[in-house]
């Protein structure tokens, strides 16, 4: 089936640094999502993005988070500055249109030291 790619698969950084997580969504998809999963807990919605804009964000999407997709390239999640509680696996998802399913990437495991 359609594949969503995420780069890198793992990232280790020091608290306070900036990190950018990259997502390469399916080529003809229009809606993009980030989800966060802390070890042992369920996956939780962070934000969704359509037509260059954030449509909805959860309370987990702190002021230090931002998303963008410049010129149809990677869909990115930037955290600046990072905090210890940002350690988690971040999953990107995309969907073609409103009536279609979301496809998930394999996740980026972020460890903040």
């Amino acid at each position, binding site marked *: 089936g359609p594949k969503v790619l995420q780069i890198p698969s793992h990232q280790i950084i020091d608290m306070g640094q900036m990190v950018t997580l990259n997502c390469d969504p399916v080529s003809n998809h229009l809606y993009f*999502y980030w989800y966060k999963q802390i070890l042992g807990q*369920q996956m939780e919605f962070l934000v969704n993005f359509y037509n260059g804009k954030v449509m*909805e964000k959860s309370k987990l999407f702190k002021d230090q988070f931002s998303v963008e997709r410049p010129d149809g390239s990677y869909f990115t999640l930037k955290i600046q500055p990072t905090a210890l509680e940002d350690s988690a696996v971040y*999953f990107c998802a995309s969907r073609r249109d409103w009536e279609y399913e*979301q496809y998930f990437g*394999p996740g980026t495991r972020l460890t903040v030291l």
Partner: protein
Amino acid sequence: GDQVEQSPSALSLHEGTGSALRCNFTTTMRAVQWFRKNSRGSLINLFYLASGTKENGRLKSAFDSKERYSTLHIRDAQLEDSGTYFCAAEAGNTGKLIFGLGTTLQVQP
């Protein structure tokens, strides 16, 4: 807030038998997706339903928005069906998915 309650949390089946997984929703959901997590931790899409039922091989899923539940039936279970299954319900107008905690299925010979 909106919640998805998935049951059972763990399930053990013998090869050739079957069972059902269920997700109950605390509010009306627009659609539901079912996934299986593979050995590398990636989510594999199984079903997407906005209503009714769908079948794919030995798997069958149903979604009743009004009654606030969805089910995933597995028949003639095989060893390779072992893994963790998740339902995720689509809430609101922006398509965000709310995930259940998962069902860990173990199929034994």
